[in-house]
């Protein structure tokens, strides 16, 4: 224990050097933590999306690239019953995507913009963007008895912009609808959507078929067999897309640059910190060679020297990690945001077949503002990765600090332990 204590005290023997070294180590630790947090944040967001869409299979009219609003082909409503009878199907959700309809509130023309209207099976889950779920936070969801009724659940952002509340009346295609619920989602675009019963949507938009059918499989294991069965049954008339393959693979591809940048940053931070610990301890051992000789002369064994210098390296590195945690707590969110912005610059142009394809987002040019919406797709799907100092992150920083100190300080400490006392005393 005394060896460790001496190691701790020795950290402060050359205070100015220790302060400089700690500054470098803490910056490296902070950057490393930011990279780690960004990668973990992306991972958890991706898992969140994956959970939401993992068991969903999307059935579209063949060639209805991106969404139905720009194709003349629709799916016959009878498909809903047929698919529901297939093995492994947990739920079938018919989906009608309305045009970007002028949604007129109490003061039409003032704030009323074009909102995306979805017709869904009343009583089912509300999903948007190819399966992203939304949650009704005020009022109620559409119920089975709402079939045929002019009721709507609107996004929270619409409610805010249009100053709408439960019970208010809105006009869709000049027909009055009563607001029965307000929904929210982590996905910002979803907060700008309106849900109405799909049979009402067919009528309102004058459609004779469904835009899409979302099929939720019983479990992820049913997804592939079910996709094959759907293709076998409907052949070339439909496109069958399993979201887990389509969305997640492309989403992860799109995030690859961010993930690899954060990994590279993490490795470089660790490497820089390791080199600093190694260099510092190497210098310390050279400086204190005579002292090591004296310690050995008065009875210190190799183990004592190894423990003393090893613990000094570990304490130095650990202090760097702790100060780095403090820096991370203060600067982490801003740094993480910068990292995301810098690495995501190329992302929208790399997404011509990305988010816009799987969901209800219009493909570029389909509607006014569509390109912007499309390009914002990835950011909306992933959202802002929240970077916060958690116990898990702190524990990893502490463990990382200890490991780094051990790794960086091992060779110099072994070098110190192997010094021959007579040689260093004679040399100096």
């Amino acid at each position: 224990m005394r060896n460790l204590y001496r190691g701790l005290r020795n950290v402060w023997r050359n205070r100015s050097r220790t302060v400089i070294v700690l500054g470098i180590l803490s910056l490296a630790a902070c950057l490393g933590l930011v990279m780690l947090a960004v990668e973990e944040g992306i991972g958890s967001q991706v898992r969140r999306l994956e959970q939401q869409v993992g068991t969903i299979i999307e059935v579209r009219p063949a060639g209805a690239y991106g969404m139905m609003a720009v194709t003349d082909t629709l799916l016959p409503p009878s498909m809903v019953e047929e698919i529901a009878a297939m093995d492994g199907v947990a739920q079938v959700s018919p989906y009608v995507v309305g045009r970007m309809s002028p949604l007129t509130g109490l003061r039409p023309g003032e704030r009323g913009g074009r909102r995306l209207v979805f017709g869904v099976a009343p009583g089912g889950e509300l999903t948007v963007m190819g399966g992203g779920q939304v949650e009704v936070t005020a009022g109620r969801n559409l119920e089975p008895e709402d079939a045929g009724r002019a009721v709507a659940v609107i996004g929270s952002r619409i409610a805010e912009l249009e100053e709408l509340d439960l019970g208010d009346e809105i006009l869709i295609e000049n027909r009055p609808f009563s607001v029965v619920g307000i929904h929210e989602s982590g996905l910002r675009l979803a907060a700008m959507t309106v849900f109405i019963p799909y049979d009402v949507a067919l009528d309102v938009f004058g459609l004779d078929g469904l835009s899409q059918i979302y099929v939720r499989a019983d479990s992820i294991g049913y997804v592939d067999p079910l996709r094959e069965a759907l293709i076998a049954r409907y052949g070339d008339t439909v496109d069958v897309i399993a979201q887990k393959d389509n969305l997640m693979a492309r989403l992860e591809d799109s995030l690859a640059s961010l993930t690899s940048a954060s990994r590279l940053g993490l490795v470089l931070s660790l490497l820089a910190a390791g080199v600093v610990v190694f260099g510092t301890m190497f210098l310390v051992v050279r400086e204190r060679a005579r002292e090591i000789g004296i310690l050995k002369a008065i009875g210190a064994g190799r183990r004592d020297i190894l423990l003393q210098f090893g613990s000094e390296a570990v304490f130095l590195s650990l202090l760097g990690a702790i100060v780095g945690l403090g820096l991370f707590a203060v600067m982490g969110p801003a740094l993480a945001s910068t990292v995301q912005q810098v690495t995501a610059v190329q992302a929208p142009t790399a997404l011509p077949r990305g988010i816009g394809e799987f969901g209800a987002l219009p493909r570029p040019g389909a509607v006014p503002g569509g390109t912007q919406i499309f390009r914002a797709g990835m950011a909306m799907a992933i959202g802002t990765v929240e970077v916060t100092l958690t116990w898990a992150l702190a524990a990893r920083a502490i463990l990382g600090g200890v490991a780094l100190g051990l790794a960086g300080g091992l060779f110099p400490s072994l070098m110190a332990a192997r010094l021959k006392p007579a040689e260093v005393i004679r040399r100096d």
Partner: protein
Amino acid sequence: MTDKVITADRLTKSFRFAGQTVQALREVSFHVDRGSLTAIVGPSGSGKTTLVNLIGGLDNPTSGELWVDGVPVHELPESRLTDFRRRKVGFVFQFYNLIPNLSAIENVALPLEFQGVPRTRREERAAECLAMAGLPAERYRHPPGRLSGGEQQRVAVARALVHGPAIVLADEPTGNLDSAMSATIMDLLRALARDHGTTVVVVTHDHQLARRADRTLNIEDGKVRGVHERRTEGSTDCG
């Protein structure tokens, strides 16, 4: 019959330096009696420090035998040498060589720490030795940088004694002190030998100080050229 605590028999040490083999000691034979104060004198480069390093187990002889307090030092591997130094030897160096960020009492307690002695016992024993070495009690908690040269050497002497070694080896212990302080430190070492039965071997350039020793070994060119016994005032050659 006197008890020989150090016995060297044809002790030889050579090492490589700047690409050449240097013969530091050439078949040196001598003995040192227990409880005596022995001075080793000789010009620079004569092999005095090499001899002290061998006696103290800091280095291995190239050939010959060396027995210290019954231990065949010439046969000990590095791991056993550490234990030998830890239990049998105390060192005093010219430049004190105290650990700068430890207090006087912590410095003195270090050898006991390496023996695994509990803290309270260590501090008690270190305080006893500091008192014996003549350091004022209010200085015990001072770091070496706040002590004078003489005080630092007193701390170094206390550190050499604290674990009750069989021998204390002092390499130029007064080389960095003025003459008055040198005499004080020498008297301290002499008292140590006389009153506590500790064998003290002192390397010095100073013949005046060497006269205070019971016995003087003259070393030149790696050989013992003469042994001067103070008690008998005689002189013999030991080669």
